[in-house]
């Protein structure tokens, strides 16, 4: 039975496709091909990480605060 596609459905579909394209671009940068069946899970995790990125980026740190690469507690 054919369904009726609403404008919202079209927008959601467009957003998913755009996200998939973004992920493909990111993956190419590290020579990784994301198989289609992995894509929904990878997108979900990227969205989760974006939330955490927004949190850490939201804190303004002094310029002399260095990364903790040589970390000693």
């Amino acid at each position, binding site marked *: 039975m054919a369904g009726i596609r609403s404008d919202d459905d079209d927008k959601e579909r467009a957003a998913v496709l755009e996200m998939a394209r973004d992920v493909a671009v*990111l993956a190419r940068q590290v020579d990784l091909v994301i198989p289609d069946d*992995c894509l929904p899970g*990878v997108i979900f995790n990227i969205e989760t990480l974006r939330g*955490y990125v927004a949190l850490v*980026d939201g804190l303004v740190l002094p310029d002399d605060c260095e*990364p903790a690469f040589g970390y*000693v*507690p």
Partner: protein
Amino acid sequence: MTLSAATLADNIRFGLRTAREVIETTLHTLETHDQAYGCVTRLLADRALRAAGLIDARIANGEPVGPLVGVPFGVKDLFDMEGIVTTAGSTVLKKNPPAVRDAAVVRRLVAAGAIPVATLNMDEFAYGFATENSHYGTTRNPRDTERLAGGSSGGSAAAVAAGMLPVTLGSDTNGSIRVPAALCGVWGLRPTQGRLPLEGIYPFAASFDTIGPFAGNSTDLKLAFEAMDGKAGGEEPDVGALRVARLGGWFERDLAPGLIDGIDRIMGFLSSTKTVGLPEVARARAAAFIITASEGGNLHLPRLRHQAPEYDPATRDRLMAGALLPASPIIQAHRLRNWFREHLHEVFRETDILIAPATVGPAPRIDQPTITVGGEAVSARANLGLFTQPLTLAGFPILAAPIAPGAEPVAELPLGVQIIAAPGQEQALFTLGAALEHAGLLGYPVRGAAGQGEN
């Protein structure tokens, strides 16, 4: 296996039992009882029996033996064990060559007389808080087998809680010792970052990776840690002189009533009403997430390019997402780590010990793996580290200890606290933990392998 490590070692040292008897009994217990829990991935029977025979011969010859003589122990399946492949809870590494020698801390435990008997289940590549493993099965909580054991060192915590092993080893990157210790009602230690050698440990996120012991009581935990550390603990502090505070704010949210009551009782016993807050805890947790995801993703990227289908799908998708993170937020997360550490050091100028919950509540059900945070049900696998991850960022030593149950322990599921000290101050954690255990405020009866409460 129902005796503590300390008692077992004394019994063997003084000839009340042979090491061989102990190891045979332990192997039999693991073979017959573990089907209910799913802790064990491989038994090391031949090796263990050989080691027991050598120990019995040493004792018969009057030769000196170590403090953990004849004590059986298990290791999370990411510690190298000579002659077998280190799986890290995955099948992805199955074609790797067998380890040429034991991990450094295993060698130290063996030098102290302990005998490895089994490798233990974990989340694949230690990426999770549940020990739901698509290759080796789900580890069930011995306190209620319908519930999660927690993870990622779930097999290690559950084997102790079930009374099958007196000591086990795990790793803790974001809470993988503290979370399962709390949910299973056993003791665990995340030592100071960098204190114990990671040689022969399969990595996860190098910035945070630590290893530590589990045990059924504070004495055994200390014995195991000192053997792993290669030296006896330092001078014991005066418990009455320790300046103790509880962590407020983030660490007071969504708590089960038993946790609030348990921490209240501990603070009352220590005559402290002090509460301190840490700044930007949500951002600290976010930084831990980002560093972990990016380092884990980078570590696995070469295999993800060619062996993606061999991974547990949940692990694979998280690692792939982590591998795609750009550099800027990773560097920002590392800067935030430094900033957060400075604040924690500032807190410790006025305080010696901090106390916080380990999880928001008891073990979630396996068929409903969620916890409630901010009034919403969220994934347990991803969020059981709500209180452990922010503290991971600083790298300070943390003791995970079970709150003592009330009058009817059978009806209560375990709840755990984190006790945090300044870097290098593990001895203060052991001293305070033992005092609170002696006072009846910490400690949860380890199950006998036949089901009776002991220890």
